[in-house]
C-alpha cells in the first residue's frame, strides 16, 4: 500500500529482522528513564533527616509486622499531603507545628514504606497524636462498630488471642540492623521483656501509638 517508506520505517527496518539488536534497543529504551529516576536516590541526598525520629522498638516493630500481615495498608494511608483540608483533619490537636504534613525524614526507618494508595479509612501517619488511647484502640480493633457505629472496617478479635514470636522479632531486628537501622544489642535484647506475654493486638496498638510520636512539637514549659 505504501510504496514510499518514510524515515522511521527505514530506520526500523534495520532491526526488524534482527532479533538480538531489537532486544538490545528495547533494553536501552526502558533503561534511560530508569537510570534517570532511580540512582539519584542513592547517589545524592534526597532526604532531610529529622533528629527526633527514632527506630521502632521491639514491640512497635512486631506491631508493624502485624500491620503488614493483616494488610492494613490496603485501606489506611500513612502520608499526609500538604493541603489545609488534610492537615486540619489529620492534625486536629495542632501537634505538629506550622506545616504538619508528612516529611521524608519521618520514614527513614520504614522498610518497606507503608504509605498505601487508598484511604478507605482515615490516614494513620500521625495517629499517636490523633488518638492516644490504647484502650480505645483495643475496643476498636475487637469491634470497630462499637466505638465507631457505621464503620466498614473488619473486626480483628484474633489479634488479642495470638501471641508474639520473640525469636522472630529478634531476627527481624537483626535483619533491619543489617539494612542500616541503628539497633543496639540492648535494643534487640529488650524484645524479651517488651514482648513477653503480649499479643499481636498489643503490638499493633504500640505501633499505632508510635506513628507520628517522634515529630510532635514539644509543649514549651
Amino acid at each position, binding site marked *: 500500500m505504501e510504496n514510499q517508506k518514510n524515515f522511521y520505517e527505514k530506520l*526500523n527496518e534495520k532491526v*526488524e529482522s534482527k532479533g538480538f539488536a531489537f*532486544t538490545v534497543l528495547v533494553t536501552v529504551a526502558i533503561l534511560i528513564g530508569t537510570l534517570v529516576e532511580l540512582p539519584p536516590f542513592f547517589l545524592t541526598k534526597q532526604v532531610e533527616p529529622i533528629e527526633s525520629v527514632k527506630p521502632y522498638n521491639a514491640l512497635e516493630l512486631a506491631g508493624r509486622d502485624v500491620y503488614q500481615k493483616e494488610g492494613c495498608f490496603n485501606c489506611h494511608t500513612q502520608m499526609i499531603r500538604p493541603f489545609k483540608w488534610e492537615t486540619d*483533619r489529620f492534625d486536629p490537636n495542632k501537634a505538629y507545628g506550622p506545616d504538619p504534613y508528612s516529611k521524608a525524614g*519521618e520514614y527513614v526507618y520504614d*522498610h*518497606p514504606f507503608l504509605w498505601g494508595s487508598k484511604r478507605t479509612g482515615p490516614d494513620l501517619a500521625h495517629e499517636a497524636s490523633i488518638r492516644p488511647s490504647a484502650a480505645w484502640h483495643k475496643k476498636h480493633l475487637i469491634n470497630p462498630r462499637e466505638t465507631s457505629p457505621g*464503620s466498614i472496617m473488619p473486626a480483628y478479635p484474633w489479634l488479642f488471642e495470638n501471641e508474639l514470636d520473640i525469636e522472630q522479632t529478634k531476627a*527481624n531486628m*537483626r535483619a533491619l540492623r543489617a539494612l542500616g537501622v541503628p539497633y543496639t544489642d540492648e535494643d534487640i535484647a529488650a524484645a524479651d521483656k517488651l514482648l513477653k506475654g503480649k499479643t499481636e493486638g498489643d503490638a499493633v496498638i504500640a505501633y499505632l501509638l508510635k506513628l507520628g510520636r517522634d515529630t510532635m512539637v514539644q509543649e514549651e514549659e
Partner: protein
Amino acid sequence: MEVNYDNQIVRWYVKSAILWGVVAMLIGIWIAFEMVFPVLNFNSPYLSFGRLRPIHTNGIIFGFTLSIVFATVFYAVPRLFKTPMWSPLLSRLQFWLYNLTIVLAAVTLALGYTQSKEYAELEWPLDILVVIWWVIFAVNFFMTMAKRQEKHIYVAVWFFIATIVTIAVLYIVNNIALPSGLLKSYSVYSGVTDANIQWWYGHNAVAFVLTTPILGMMYYYLPKHTNLPIFSHRLSILHFWSLIFIYIWAGPHHLLYSPVPEWAQTLGMVFSLALIAPSWGGMLNGFLTLSQAKEKVRTDATLKFMLVALTFYGMSTLEGPIMSIRAVNSLSHNTDWTIGHVHGGALGWVAGMAIAAIYYLVPRLWNAKLYSEKLAETHFWIATLGILLYYVSMWASGITEGLMWRAYDASGMLQYPNWIEIVQNLTPFRFVRAIGGTLFLTGFCIMIYNVYKTIQNKGSGFVPTDLREGA
C-alpha cells in the same frame, strides 16, 4: 514446510486463564460486598479485606492476565516465526512452575505472608520461583526467535520482547529484600526511596503486564480475526518505541504531593501527559484496522469485545494522564476514582482483549465450531453493562469522597469532620460497583459454559466463517 505447532500448551494456558479469572473475580466481588456489608469479613483472618485484596489483584494480574498472555505467546509466536517453540519441555516446566507459584501465592497471602508492596506482595521464596520461570520463558522465547524460519519480526512480537525484558528488570530491582525468616523479609530500600522504586515498578507492572502484551495480543488477533492488515505499519513503529520509552518514567505520578522529591514528581507528571500520544497511537491503529470491518462488528461478539477493549484502552490512557496532573490528583488520589480507573483498564481493556482471545482460540485449539454465537453475544452485553456500572459508580464515589474530604463550612471548619459520615455516603455507589462486578463475572461464566460445550464437540471441525453472511 509443514510446521508442527504445540497446541497442547496453549490449551492448558487457556484453561488456567479461565480458572484464575473466575477465582480472582470471585474474590474481587466478595471484597466489594465487604465494603458494603462488613459482616462478610466473618471476623476471620482468612476472609478479612486486608488479606483478600492482594489475592484479588495478584490473581487478576499474574493469574488471569499472564495466563492468557502466555497462551497467546505460545500460540502466536511459533506461527509468526514459522517455527515451533524451541523446547516443549521448557514450555511445560514453565507452565507447572508458574501455576504452582499462583497457588502458593494465594495460600501465603491468605496466611498473611506479604512484603506489603502493591503487586509485589509475594515473599522472597516465591519471588525466586517467579524469576526461575520467567528466565525459563525468556530462554525458550529467545531461542525460538534465534531459530526462526521467518526473518521478519512482526509487531506483536515487539511487544512481547518489551514485556519479557522489562518485567525482568522491574521485578528483580523492586523485590530486593533481606530475609529474616523462611517467609519474612524487609525491603532493602526505606521511606521515600522505597516509595519511588515501588511505584516505578507498580506503574510499569501496569505498562508491561497489562498494556504491552495486551497490545501484542491486539496486533495478532485483530488482523487474524478480520483478515485485514494492520492499518499503519508506520504508526506501529512510532507508537511502539515511544510507548516503551515514555512509560518507564511515569511512576512518580503515584506520589504527587508526597515527600518524594519535587523533581521526580514533575518528571512523573510530564511523562504521564506525554503518554497520551503513544497510547492513542496504538488505540487508533486498532480502531482504524477495525473500521475496515465495520459491518462485521455488528454480528461478531469477538470483534465487539475487541472494540470495547480498544475503547476502554483509549479512555483509561486519557484518564490516567489527566489524573497525573497535580490539581486533578489532589482530588482523585487515595479515592475510589483510582479504583474505577484501574478497572476501566482491567475489565474493559485487559479482560476485553483476553475474552476476545479466548473466543478466538478455543474453536481453533479444540477444532470445533463455537457452541453458541448467541451466548457470546449475551456475554458481551452483560459484561459491558457490568463495566459501565463499575466505572460510573466509582467515578461518582471517588469524586464524592474527594470533595467531602476537602469541604469547608461557612465558619471555616471542615464540613465533614466525621470520617464515618463520608464512608456512609459512599455505600450506595459501592453497592452498585459490586453489582457491576457480579454482572461481569456472570458474563464470564456464560463464556465458560460456551467454552465447555464447544470442547465437548472437540474434533468436529472448525471452519472460520464470516459472520456477515451467516445467521
